[in-house]
């Protein structure tokens, strides 16, 4: 699975073999396919795009056509070991509500999003006075799907406010490679944030 996107290989390390997984916005199903074939994981992907759905079926992945903005009411409480949401949070109408849903349905949630606190983004807005465009955020303001961007600090504040415990955090560059000095200044240097979290009792 060398072709597996590096964000997905990062996430894969966090998932225990044989677990039951729900992947929100699963794309072409490559992560689930790798988890299925190499770690004996079973589960479902949720996806809205017909091309991706056909591709998931082609890849032998269980895929459910669904609109994440409609919530996860079809899923029972704590039905999954992990609920994964890669690069989707920022494109939702109600990201906070879906985060709550992730941790209702899953014992643990794995969330990745582009960090809007990155120094390049801050500079573009502060000095250029224009909405930032970067490799992690390649769209212009009028055609971006990312309507709820946040920084590491914003996400962590939300977690604290909603009684959500962060179990693990990994801050990487847009290619999902480690960044020098990221542990000192994660919110400034990180381009992509990945979190593993759970609901506090």
């Amino acid at each position, binding site marked *: 699975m060398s072709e597996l996107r590096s964000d997905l290989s990062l996430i894969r390390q966090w998932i225990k073999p044989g677990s*039951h997984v729900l992947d929100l916005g699963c794309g072409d199903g490559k992560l689930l396919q790798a988890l299925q074939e190499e770690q004996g994981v079973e589960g479902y992907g949720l996806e809205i795009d017909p091309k991706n759905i056909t591709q998931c*079926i082609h890849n032998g*992945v269980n*895929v459910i*056509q669904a609109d994440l903005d409609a919530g996860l009411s*079809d899923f029972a409480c704590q039905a999954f070991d992990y609920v994964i949401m890669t690069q989707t949070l920022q494109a939702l109408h109600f990201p906070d509500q879906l985060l709550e849903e992730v941790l209702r349905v899953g014992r643990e949630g794995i969330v990745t999003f582009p960090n809007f606190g990155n120094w390049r983004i801050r500079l573009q807005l502060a000095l250029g006075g224009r909405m930032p465009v970067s490799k992690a955020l390649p769209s212009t303001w009028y055609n971006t799907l990312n309507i709820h961007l946040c920084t590491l600090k914003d996400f962590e504040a939300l977690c604290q406010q909603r009684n959500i415990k962060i179990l693990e955090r990994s801050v990487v560059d847009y290619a999902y490679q480690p960044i020098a000095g990221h542990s000192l200044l994660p919110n400034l240097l990180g381009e992509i944030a990945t979190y593993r979290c759970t609901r506090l009792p």
Partner: protein
Amino acid sequence: MPKSIPADSVGLVTEQSLIFDEPLELISGRTLSSYKLVFETYGELNSNGTNALLICHALSSDHHAAGYHNMDDKKPGWWDSCIGPGKPFDTNNFFIVCPNNLGGCKGSSGPNQPNPETGKLYGPDFPIVTVKDWVNSQQRLMLALGIKQWAAVIGGSLGGMQVIQWAIDYPSSLKHALVIASAPHLSAQNIAFNEVARQAIRTDPNFHDGHYYEHNTIPSTGLKLARMLGHITYLSDDAMRAKFDRDLSDEGFSYNYNYDVEFQVESYLRHQAQSFVDRFDANTYLLMTKLLDYFDPAADYDNDLAKAFSHIQARFLVASFTSDWRFAPTRSREIVKALIDAKRHVSYAEIDAPHGHDAFLMPIPYYIEVLNAYMRRVSDEVNA
């Protein structure tokens, strides 16, 4: 009439039949001492009997799912869009079986067929069968044809209900289950439509309590009304608007101010109704609407569909169509939810299509791609 048979057609096909002499105990408590099933097959069964697909037909269709009976046929079988070489149910890879179900009117034991015990037509005395009975009769056909396990059981609408029942009742006899535009049971609204259809037939003066064959007549008025009503529920509002709008049937531009056919939609419905009367039997229509009403596999499992699915082994593909209000996407999602709750394998596609319930018979690109992708996996498994 096909001038020539298209390259992606199964070509000319001949129906086959088998008589089963072992009595079939029915859910109603009655027994069929023997019964006949007519069916068609397309493609070749492989040597280990693992490449067979069962196609389950819906309310008003039959065993003629693909190809032509002769060169004078106006239309091919009812699911010709999906069955044939290079199509989703690819006869290059699969051996495809489609039976006419018990109680039907196209040659299998049913109201318009002779009762072997009396030599007379069954008429209304043919027992009301259920989806479970159908599946039991199809399982005997499977064994008779030397099929070890279905690579997939497939059906739309009422056909999808048979697929669900197969997966529950014979979990190890199918690897895949394709449930299209179906529902886990009928809603009150569905039953209400069926009841109006039945009343239309049963109150027709020519119905004679179902013994109309003996009077050399048919309750055609009632059957036509039933079909018109049904047909409206198979189309969406948008599809009807697109097809007919308020267009008048004669090229006239003014109203006649009488009750003759004026709007194109009226003319269409009457034409559909007439052609239905020519090909379908009223007692079969009554029986099949009742069978639809009774279908409720969860009832045997504390009304818990997830419990009904807890022991199934088949992997499911469920598909619905956005404009289908007869068996709306929400009904398919009930099936999907129960499968997920039971931790079974399922994929679900909700196909954006304007055609209403009938969409499942149409070559809609996304729908065909989903079926193709899924069936290629099934084929790879068979050949693995």
